[in-house]
C-alpha cells in the first residue's frame, strides 16, 4: 500500500473517531477506527508498513484519549505484525473471518493496554468489561462489513441491473 493512501487512512480514522466521539450516538458505534486502518494495511502483506501504521495509529489514539502516549502505539504495532502474519500465512478470507480476527485483535489491544497501564501507571487491570466486548464486536462487525463491501462484485451487479432495466 502506498504511503499516501496510508496517511489518508489514518486521517480518516482520526476524523471518524472525533466525529463519532462528539455524536450522542457514540455508545452504539464504539468502533476502533485506528485498528481498522492498521488491519487494512496489514492486509496488503507488508510487515514494515503494517507495524509503522499500527504504531502511528496507536500514538494518535493515545494523544487524543490516553493519559500516556505509547500504550496503544505499542499494542497496535504488535497487532499490525500479527495481523500481517495472519493475512500472509493463513489461507482464509471472507467477512466472517475478518470480523472474527478483528474481534480478537480488539480484545488483545485492550489486554495489552491494560497490562501496560498496570505496569507503568499502577492502574488496576481491567480487561473484559462490557464496553470492551461491545467495542470489539462493533469493530469486528464494521471490519466484516467493509470486507464484504470490498469483495462484492459491484461492476457485475451494476451491469446486471442495467440489463434488467433494458429488458
Amino acid at each position, binding site marked *: 500500500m502506498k504511503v499516501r493512501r496510508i496517511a489518508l487512512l489514518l486521517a480518516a480514522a482520526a476524523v471518524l473517531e472525533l466525529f*463519532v466521539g462528539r455524536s450522542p450516538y457514540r455508545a452504539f458505534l464504539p468502533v476502533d477506527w485506528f485498528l481498522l486502518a492498521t488491519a487494512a494495511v496489514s492486509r496488503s*502483506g*507488508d510487515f514494515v508498513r503494517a507495524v509503522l501504521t499500527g504504531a502511528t495509529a496507536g500514538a494518535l489514539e493515545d*494523544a487524543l484519549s490516553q493519559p500516556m*502516549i*505509547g500504550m496503544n502505539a505499542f499494542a497496535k*504495532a504488535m497487532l499490525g505484525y500479527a495481523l500481517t502474519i495472519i493475512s500472509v500465512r493463513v489461507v482464509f478470507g471472507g467477512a466472517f473471518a475478518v470480523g472474527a480476527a478483528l474481534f480478537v485483535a480488539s480484545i488483545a489491544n485492550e489486554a495489552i493496554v491494560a497490562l501496560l497501564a498496570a505496569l507503568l501507571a499502577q492502574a488496576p487491570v481491567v480487561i473484559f468489561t462490557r464496553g470492551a466486548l461491545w467495542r470489539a464486536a462493533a469493530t469486528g462487525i464494521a471490519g466484516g462489513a467493509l470486507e464484504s463491501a470490498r469483495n462484492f462484485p459491484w461492476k457485475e451487479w451494476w451491469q446486471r441491473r442495467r440489463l434488467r432495466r433494458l429488458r
Partner: protein
Amino acid sequence: MRPPSARVEVAAVNPRRGGAVLVTVLVACVLLLSAQAPSRRGRGTVLQAWFLSLSAPVAAAVGSVSHSVSGAVESTFALFGARSENERLRRELDARERELFRLRAEALQRDEDRRLLGAGSALPGVVGSVPILLLEQRAGSHSVLIGAGSADGVAPGSPLAVPAGLVGRVVTVGRGISSAQLLLDASAAAGARIARTGELGVVRGDGHGGLVLNNIATTSSVARGDLIESAGIDGIYPRGVPIGHVDSVSRGSKLFLEVRVTPSADFSRLTDVLLLAPSPATKEGAEAGRSAAR
C-alpha cells in the same frame, strides 16, 4: 512501464525485516512510556499538551460537523410522531414544573439553613459550560476530550460536573481543547462523605462503569439509597457536589464495608459539562509546578 521486480515483492512480505522494525518500534514505545511514567504525578505530559493544542482546530471542526449531522438526524426522526411526542412532552413539562417548584422551595430552604448555620462553605464556582468532543473507554480508563483549553480559562485539576453530579477532572490542558479523567476511571478517586451520617470515605471508579466507596467502617449505618457527595478533603473537588447513591452494602475486608455506588451523573449521555473553578490547593500545585519548570 517496467513490471515490479521480484525483489521488491520479497521485501514487502519479508517478516524478518518487519520483525526488526517491530522490535525497534516496541523499544521506542517502552522508552517513551518510561520517560512519561515518573514525571506524571496526575498531570498530562507536555508532549500531549502540544498535540492537543495542534489538533484543536481539527477536533473543533469535526466536532461541530458531527454535532450538526446528529442534530439533522434527530430533527428528521423528530418529524415522525411529533404529535404524540408533543403530548408526552406537555405532560412531562407539567411534571417538571411541579418538580421545579418543589426543588426551588427546597433550595431556598437549604440556602437559608446554610446561611443560618454559618458553615461558610462557598458553593462551587461554575466557570462555564464546555462541549464534550470525545468519550473514550479502554481497559478501565474512562476519559473525555473537552472543547475548551487554557484560552478559555481551563486549568489542570479543574473539576467537571453536570447538574446531576460530579463527572471528573481536567488532566491535560491544550490551548483549545483539554483531556479529562472521569470518576469512573479505574485509577480515579475523590474524597466523599455520606450525606446522612457525615462519614468520610474515598470514592473510586471500578473501571466497569460503577463506583465503590472505600474506608467505611463496619460499624457504619450506611444504607441503600444514601446520598454520597464530595467531601472537599482531596484538594481537587469542591464540597457538597452529589456523586451518587448507595446501591449495595456488603461486608468487605475485616475492618471496612464494601459500598457500591450508582453515579448521579448519566455518563452515557454526556454532551456538555460544567467547568468548575479549580480548588486553591490545585492552583497552588500548578503554580509550583510551573515555577519549578522555569
